[in-house]
């Protein structure tokens, strides 16, 4: 550690003529060279060159200059462990043809549960195409929660799902509980409980969800054009500002706004379709729609091109 950094105070070697000068490290030869006069001060300190020569060829599936798996230093306790690999020669098999030393010994048993959870998190995130940064954030959250041990009794999958939910929220792209439920085997209730517990354990809080967070996702899943999406965003935002929908979940309001916008345009969608995508019951959309319907003309953006005029909007 100490020998590799140039900026450190070097306890061991200094150039005899220039005690204050910084020593440059020539890593290929393992030398420490004084930057003022060029004197080689330390010899054969550390050679970090390759152990063997590598040639680039076609079947370069594995890079011979690297040993071991990619390190995950932030998360597990470092991956410095040894496993007994499968035998290669004839001597590694005993009488019956089974291999001796069968156990590939478990590595880092203290963190096995954590590595399992990371795998599960990656699986879940894959199913809804979440980017790597959210997955990393989730892993970090899980590690923090796991180390704290305050939620030890809860199922690891539930904690993982809740961490995923929190990570999405923190990154500014929240996913609804129902969306997380869809990729996890845990019930919404349990995820909700773990979510609250984790917030308390980590002493953090998250921002409130707004209607706009979900617009782009829902609209593109429904195949609605950009105009309709912008109109729906505007409607939902206006509705919340004017407080036409007190006490309604922002998801329901967003769904109702999408319904209104799509019905006014050429691309109409039924309540059932929207309910399917948003995870909202169609009666809920109906209820929220009824609340925003009276002020429909005020909610649309000024430059919206109506395929169906406002007074012809369906009234449920």
């Amino acid at each position, binding site marked *: 550690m100490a020998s590799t950094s140039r900026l450190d105070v070097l306890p061991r070697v200094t150039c005899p003529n220039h005690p204050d000068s910084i020593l440059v490290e020539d890593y290929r030869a393992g030398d420490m060279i004084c930057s003022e006069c060029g004197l080689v001060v330390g010899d054969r300190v550390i050679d970090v060159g390759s152990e063997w020569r590598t040639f680039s060829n076609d079947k370069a599936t594995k890079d011979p200059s690297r040993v071991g798996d990619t390190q995950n230093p932030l998360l597990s306790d470092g991956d410095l462990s040894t496993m007994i690999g499968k035998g290669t020669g004839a001597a590694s098999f005993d009488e019956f043809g089974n291999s001796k030393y069968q156990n590939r010994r478990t590595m880092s048993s203290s963190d096995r549960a954590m590595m399992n959870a990371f795998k599960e998190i990656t699986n879940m995130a894959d199913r809804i195409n979440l980017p790597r940064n959210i997955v990393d954030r989730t892993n970090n959250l899980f590690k923090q929660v796991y180390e704290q041990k305050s939620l030890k009794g809860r199922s690891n999958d539930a904690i993982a799902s809740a961490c995923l939910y929190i990570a999405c929220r923190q990154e500014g792209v929240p996913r*609804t509980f*129902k969306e997380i439920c869809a990729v996890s085997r845990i019930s919404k209730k349990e995820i909700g409980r773990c979510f609250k517990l984790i917030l308390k354990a980590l002493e953090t*809080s998250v921002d*409130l969800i707004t209607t706009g967070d979900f617009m782009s996702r829902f609209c593109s899943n429904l195949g609605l054009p950009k105009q309709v999406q912008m109109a729906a965003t505007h409607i939902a935002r206006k509705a919340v500002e004017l407080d036409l929908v*007190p*006490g309604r979940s922002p998801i329901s309001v967003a769904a109702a706004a999408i319904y209104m916008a799509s019905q006014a345009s050429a691309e109409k969608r039924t309540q059932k379709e929207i309910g399917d995508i948003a995870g909202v019951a169609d009666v809920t959309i109906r209820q929220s729609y009824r609340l925003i319907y009276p002020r429909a003309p005020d909610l649309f953006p000024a430059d919206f091109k109506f395929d169906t005029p406002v007074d012809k909007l369906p009234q449920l």
Partner: protein
Amino acid sequence: MDADSDVALDILITNVVCVFRTRCHLNLRKIALEGANVIYKRDVGKVLMKLRKPRITATIWSSGKVICTGATSEEEAKFGARRLARSLQKLGFQVIFTDFKVVNVLAVCNMPFEIRLPEFTKNNRPHASYEPELHPAVCYRIKTLRATLQIFSTGSITVTDHVRQLSDASARENNHLLDSRFCPKTGPNVKAVASAVEQIYPFVFESRK
């Protein structure tokens, strides 16, 4: 700041939960067969006994622990618990009425105005938590009183107060915020409820419509 200076808020106590112990092992099967107004839940191992006079539902465990719910005041809870112990005694068990404790008090209050929940949550960050997907109310916890308030957008507030204190027989000053179900000896829990509502009133008032 006081709520009652301009408008009197009715705080209705809807539920008082208490526990007591009978200090003897209870044969649940016998209670289930011979007792009146009982429901035997064998899979969980408890008997529910519903009393009519103070309308109380009691959960009886075989270890002798009894939980009474449904009472509307602390006094009523004590009457009901005693009555329950008496009926168990009549069934033949050597019941000793000990460790009576009021565990939880649930009260409902209605604000005369509606409340904007997102604004309220933003102003009261650590104490208030709002998850519209999970529950339509804001959950506000007051640590000092160990009270949890659920604030709805219509203005109704539910207060649950779980201060574990033995009910004190000494007379306390009557708090005129309490409602018509007037009890002469208001225990500490009930008073804590009133003070919780008083505490939250200014915050809620800021975020009203």
